[in-house]
Structures are given as structure tokens and as C-alpha cells.
């Protein structure tokens, strides 16, 4: 494993927790973003994620470096899965260890906010009646209506 990576296989949580844990760590926070079945009344069948892989891994490593500067003493791993993901699959995982818990929470939440801003990864939602790449301007089809 790499501490900042794009993968195509299911994400194993323990691997990333083990990576960040060390004898000075008193707290570990893990965030997973999972595929949710219902979004604003629309049922998702599955998601398709695509990434500009080398740039995405570079940007995730940069986020990790930003975090370690803001919260000294933490250790970070970030992994994002691409390809076809189904309900409850983990799309993204962030693991942060820290001597004390406050930094572990704050840094973790900072990471997911930054990932959503700068990492070149795209999500296409596939519903029963359509599909769409999700971007800054999210458009959801009317409930029961046709998309596109």
C-alpha cells in the first residue's frame, strides 16, 4: 500500500489504520465515504468513479502534507477507490493518528473537505432512469421523472 493512493479493489480499513498507528498515537480517526442508496429522493443503482490517477495521488499527498503542517504530530493515509461501486462500498477512506484526539478529528474533517475541492476524481451517479457526472452544479432528476 501507499499512504496516498487510488485503488480499484475494495478498501480494507484495517490496513490504513495499521499504517497510521504508532506508539505515540493516542487517537485514530477514520472516515469512510460510502455509496448511499438514496440521495434527495432519488435511488442510486451504483456509482462510477474516474480519476486522473497520478495527479489525484499527488494532490492527496499534498493534502496530507498540509495536514501534517497544520497539526504537527499526526500521521495520515488517504485512499480513494475508482471504478464501479455499489451500495455501501467505501469510495474514500481517511485515517489520521495523533497524540491527542482533537487534532485527529479536525485534521480528518479537513481532509475530506479538501479532497472534494482539489483532487481530480469524478463521480457518475447511475439511477434507474438515467445517469450523470456529478460536478459543482449538481442536478438531480425530478422524482419519478426522466433525466436528460
Amino acid at each position: 500500500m501507499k499512504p496516498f493512493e487510488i485503488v480499484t479493489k475494495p478498501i480494507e480499513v484495517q490496513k490504513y489504520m495499521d499504517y497510521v498507528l504508532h506508539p505515540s498515537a493516542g487517537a485514530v480517526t477514520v472516515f469512510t465515504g460510502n455509496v448511499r442508496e438514496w440521495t434527495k429522493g432519488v435511488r442510486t443503482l451504483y456509482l462510477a468513479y474516474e480519476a486522473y490517477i497520478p495527479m489525484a495521488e499527488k494532490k492527496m499527498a499534498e493534502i496530507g502534507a498540509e495536514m501534517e503542517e497544520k497539526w504537527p504530530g499526526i500521521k495520515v493515509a488517504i485512499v480513494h477507490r475508482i471504478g464501479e461501486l455499489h451500495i455501501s462500498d467505501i469510495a474514500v477512506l481517511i485515517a489520521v493518528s495523533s497524540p491527542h484526539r482533537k487534532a485527529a478529528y479536525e485534521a480528518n474533517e479537513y481532509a475530506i473537505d479538501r479532497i472534494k475541492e482539489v483532487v481530480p476524481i469524478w463521480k457518475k451517479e447511475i439511477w434507474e432512469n438515467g445517469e450523470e457526472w456529478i460536478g459543482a452544479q449538481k442536478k438531480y432528476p425530478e422524482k419519478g421523472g426522466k433525466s436528460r
Partner: protein
Amino acid sequence: MIKIKYFAAAKETAGKEEEVLKQKKMTVQQLLDWIEQAYPEFKGMSLQVAVNEEYARREDTIHSGDVCALIPPVSGG
């Protein structure tokens, strides 16, 4: 030669994953102008351009050998 990579919605709009421009030098803005001319559907799309895996400004210069990427609004996580 400048390589252009298309991702996600941009890939679907261009109908291809990548192509090569026979330019020696151009600005990011000129690249975007060229793309909008070649694929009118890009007009009005919110796009960023990455040059060699780093976000670039409109006034930055692209050189032969650079790899550019059209980055639609990201939606990871």
C-alpha cells in the same frame, strides 16, 4: 506537441480520452479557445486545466511536451 487528456464529462463531450496538438507553445486560454472551437459543446462548461499534473491559470504558458488535462468540477469523496 502538446498532449490533451479528457476526463469524466469532458471525455464524453470530446468523445475521446486524449489527443495531441501540434503546437510548440500556447497559453492555457488559447488551449481552451481551441477546444471550444473544436467541440462547441464545451461552451459554458466549468473547466480547469492541469498542466503536467498541476492546476494552471489561464495566462500560464504550455510548451511542447507538456501534458494537459481538462478537469471538470471534481466530485470525489
